[in-house]
């Protein structure tokens, strides 16, 4: 285990989280088209950052920094990491950040078409997931984790975690579509709001039951209970932020410009959604790391009856 590599991976993950916040600020301020240019802003590397150009060009600067950090991370991984699959993940991270930059350019050049903007927002979450995963894989706790003898539940925990993860990811896609389907001065489409509320219920059930299962089955195993507890707390915060975001967004078309608290609450909702996603990623990866594929009941069913 290389402590420096792990710390650098954590740095890249934190920078990516900051980038997600910067991107959410662009959307909430309706700043995505503050300049017609890409990759330059109004033909300049450093334009005067006034008005909404502050958010759009600021986002590009943070994105450039994250891109550089990702390149450095890949070099660091190739130099220090022996595991072939981690090295490949470093390459995937670089490809993802390049694709993300190109999607950002496309969405500006094509004036925010919904599929491209949604893909840009979704890939941002996936890239965050990759950087967090690299941080997990290079951590001491990952290296030193020892397999637990068996999954104590009837349903294998890794399947529960995977289900929660997929549900959250689908919810993120719906959320991204909802956010990019109308600017602050327009009302959000009702059908997408209902889909997002339905998704919130599904995530609550999937993640709530998964985290509770972890807490009940593996008391004392902080390797699993810590992300489970954090996921539960974040889930509650995210639900409250979701209600607040809906209420402030409902009122924003009557405002003469994007205003707080709508901006800060919608951005916080995006950021907290990202944290729920990556916390579930950590929980899922750790589950796969220490638990067997089958649950206790499945083991029993599969075991031949002793006479």
């Amino acid at each position: 285990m290389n402590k420096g590599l792990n710390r650098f991976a954590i740095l890249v993950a934190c920078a990516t989280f900051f980038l997600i916040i910067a991107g959410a600020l662009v959307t909430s301020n309706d700043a995505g088209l503050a300049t017609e240019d890409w990759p330059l802003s109004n033909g300049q590397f450093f334009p005067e950052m006034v008005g909404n150009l502050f958010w759009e060009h600021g986002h590009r600067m943070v994105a450039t920094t994250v891109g550089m950090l990702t390149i450095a991370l890949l070099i660091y991984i190739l130099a220090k990491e022996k595991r072939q699959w981690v090295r490949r993940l470093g390459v995937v991270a670089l490809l993802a950040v390049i694709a993300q930059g190109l999607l950002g350019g496309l969405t500006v050049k094509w004036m925010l078409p919904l599929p491209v903007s949604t893909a840009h927002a979704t890939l941002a979450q996936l890239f965050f997931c990759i950087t967090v995963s690299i941080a997990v894989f290079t951590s001491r706790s990952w290296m030193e984790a020892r397999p637990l003898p068996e999954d104590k539940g009837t349903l294998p925990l890794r399947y529960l975690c995977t289900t929660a993860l997929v549900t959250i990811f689908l919810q993120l896609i719906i959320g991204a579509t909802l956010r990019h389907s109308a600017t602050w001065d327009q009302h959000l489409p009702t059908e997408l709001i209902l889909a997002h509320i339905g998704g919130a219920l599904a995530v609550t059930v999937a993640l709530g039951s998964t985290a509770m299962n972890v807490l009940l089955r593996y008391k004392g195993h902080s390797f699993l209970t810590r992300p489970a507890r954090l996921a539960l707390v974040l889930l509650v915060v995210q639900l409250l932020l979701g209600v607040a975001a809906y209420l402030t967004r409902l009122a924003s078309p009557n405002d003469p410009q994007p205003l707080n608290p709508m901006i800060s609450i919608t951005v916080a909702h995006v950021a907290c959604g990202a944290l729920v996603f990556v916390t579930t990623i950590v929980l899922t990866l750790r589950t796969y790391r220490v638990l067997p594929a089958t649950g206790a009941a499945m083991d029993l069913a599969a075991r031949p009856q002793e006479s």
Partner: protein
Amino acid sequence: MNKQTKVWLVISIALSVVLAAACGGGATNTTNAPANTESAGATAYSGSTGSVTGVISFNGAAPASRKIDTSADPACGQKSPNLTADDIVVKDGKLANTFVYVKEGTVEGGKKITDYAWSTPTTAVNLDQNGCQYKPHVLGVQVNQKLSVTNSDPTQHNVHPTPKLNPEWNQTQANGAPPIEKTFARPEVLIPVKCNQHPWMKAYVGVMRHPFFAVSGEDGTFEIKGLPPGNYTVVAWKEGGANGTEKNMQVTVPANGSAKADFAFGEGATTSLNPSLKMMPALEIPLRH
């Protein structure tokens, strides 16, 4: 070629395609098809004309003016320290910035007004960015008539119409930059124009096939001149809500005379037949009743 080389080749090609698409632009929703489709053989109208005049009233208390926070761009704050939203301008119960236009109608003699050819003016209509607001807030142009957008502010703007029937465009305009001149090929009532640099800045452009439109002044009055005598549906459009609110009225325009068309918006206004639900192409799709 081994498997690894093939994988890298595929990835490289995919990235190149995406990069080429990004650099090449390729706006969606674009069309160059001429849409000012004056029917073949349509003739210009020659004969006596009349006019439609009226007043746009606003019933009830006028909405309180809402101050704009210009702190994001000091140049706006310096030029317009007390900037307020310009979406509803009411003075003495009269409503400004209402777009009034002839939607459809029959000229004396039985021909539809759309059966005539209406020439496109050669003069451009100006839309100025002044004090970090679009001036005028509502304006009309004819199909293929030049719209000239200027910037009188000591800061940069970006001009971004978001039509549904015409191609969308977004163009940055620095202080002192030459005017941006554009035309719209299809009738559309009305096209919102925004500035993504300053999100409070909005204007609306009505694109008409004919010249029979007007915008109410601060005293709420308007006049549509040069209309052939006949029976017409006159529509008044006011900003607000998702797509604005429309009210319509039937009028009979006499030769060398004037028809009256007063509209009222606000609380308890009953002139309306119904509010419009969608952006509609002028003279092409009837309002739903």
